[in-house]
């Protein structure tokens, strides 16, 4: 990984600038490469290591075409698309106004099977899948529905650099009913809220201490407010993916290429191992930010990282 800009000076400048942003509380956290463990910290972020990030300007996902018996593929794709759009259309504060966050998320279409995990030697999927016939993470191992987990996102990344290689999202519709209406079904859980929250994890964000944020780690029955990002969520995503394509990493910064390549690492596997052609030439260049905006975002994440490290304990 190459270091492209010195962040030490920038971080100092940013601290003050960030405080000038209305409502900026810096409650967001980025997911770090290290394990968490132990007790929940009273304040600040948790974990250790370096923040994770998607290196490419674009990232793609696919929805398992089986979707759900209760929710069609089309409806699922719409919900997932809206969830990712909420993040990728975030307007980041810059020196003069705002500019779109520096990551684009693309729907790569359906896949014929859902395969959660990362293939280190072949094609991959960033798949969104409903677990309908069983919940494979149930405590008794044979998926009798003994699980409290509604949604689970798996993010694979390089432990040293933090670069995300793969991400998959599972929805437990075997054990639970999910609701897709604006007025949440009393017997269900709001799927758009779940997916929007999980999409934040997919993009490398951890839980926030801002109670109003989509990334806050608690949720009240019947609410739909997590469908909609709050300022803290926007600052979080903007801290990772600066509008000019800069990625703020644990080692400094890295510049995403100008081209949009949303394919998973080593290509898209649409059929769980069957040979599939891959190719995508989607174009997209999110808006660029001036240097001040870059500095603001950088400072946000640099401070976040410092706060996190104070809480660390070796495993």
């Amino acid at each position: 990984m190459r270091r492209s800009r010195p962040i030490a000076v920038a971080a100092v400048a940013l601290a003050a600038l960030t405080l000038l942003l209305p409502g900026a509380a810096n409650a967001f956290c980025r997911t770090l490469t290290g394990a968490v463990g132990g007790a929940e910290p009273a304040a600040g972020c948790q974990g250790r290591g370096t923040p994770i990030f998607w290196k490419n300007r674009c990232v793609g996902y696919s929805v398992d075409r089986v979707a759900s018996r209760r929710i069609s593929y089309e409806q699922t794709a719409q919900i997932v698309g809206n969830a990712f759009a909420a993040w990728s259309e975030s307007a980041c504060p810059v020196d003069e106004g705002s500019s779109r966050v520096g990551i684009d998320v693309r729907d790569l279409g359906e896949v014929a099977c859902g395969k959660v995990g990362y293939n280190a030697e072949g094609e991959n999927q960033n798949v969104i899948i409903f677990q309908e016939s069983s919940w494979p993470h149930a405590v008794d191992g044979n998926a009798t529905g003994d699980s409290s987990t509604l949604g689970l996102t798996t993010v694979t990344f390089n432990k040293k650099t933090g670069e995300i290689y793969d991400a998959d999202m599972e929805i437990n519709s075997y054990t639970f009913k999910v609701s897709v209406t604006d007025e949440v079904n009393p017997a269900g859980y709001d799927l758009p809220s779940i997916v929007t929250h999980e999409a934040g994890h997919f993009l490398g964000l951890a839980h926030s201490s801002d109670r109003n944020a989509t990334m806050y780690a608690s949720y009240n029955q019947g609410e739909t407010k997590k469908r909609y990002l709050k300022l803290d969520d926007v600052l979080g995503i903007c801290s990772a993916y600066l509008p000019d394509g800069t990625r703020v990493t644990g080692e400094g910064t890295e510049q995403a290429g100008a081209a949009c390549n949303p394919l998973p690492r080593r290509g898209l596997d649409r059929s769980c191992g069957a040979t599939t052609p891959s190719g995508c030439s989607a174009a997209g260049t999110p808006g660029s930010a001036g240097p001040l905006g870059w500095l603001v975002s950088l400072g946000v994440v640099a401070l976040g990282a410092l706060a996190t490290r104070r809480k660390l304990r070796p495993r």
Partner: protein
Amino acid sequence: MPSRTAQASVSVAVYFETLVDRADTVAVATPIDQSSVWEGGRIVTYTRLKVERPVAGQAGTEVWVRTLGGSVGNIGQNVSGEPQFTDGQSSLLFLRKVDSAFMVVERGQGQYPLVKDSRTAKMTTVRAADVGLLMAPKPQAAAVGPSATPKVLAPTRYANTLAQDVLINRPVDDVARDIAEAWTKRHATK
């Protein structure tokens, strides 16, 4: 290049009685050894823990606990919402025997690390660091999977009380007493 996997989760907050019902044993234990392996494309970690204090059921002096995630070679998986064991960090654990090892009941919701309360100097149970997003439980009608506990069990004084409301930020002695009491009622009527 080494790589690692993280997971993040949304879970429904479980009831205290659910943890008691689904556990085969409850104990305070401390990790002493750990090993991660590939199983069916996923990494799982087996942690050997010394049982410091049996609370309910039969745990023995040591237990092996299986959790999702870990590191093998240069690839790792870190599963948010899963229990995580830090060297020397004792936890109150609700355990269920699966094959040759135990699993923690309801993942991170079945693990409560112990810390010393600075005011009282008593060992106190706290919320684990990475439980994940917790949603309030819905009525039973929300569940669409097969019912796991159709039998009516004797209620405890914590009927319909969330586990986190019983088990977090309390002296472990008090928590252990409540668990043992609930265990006697619930498991006697199973």
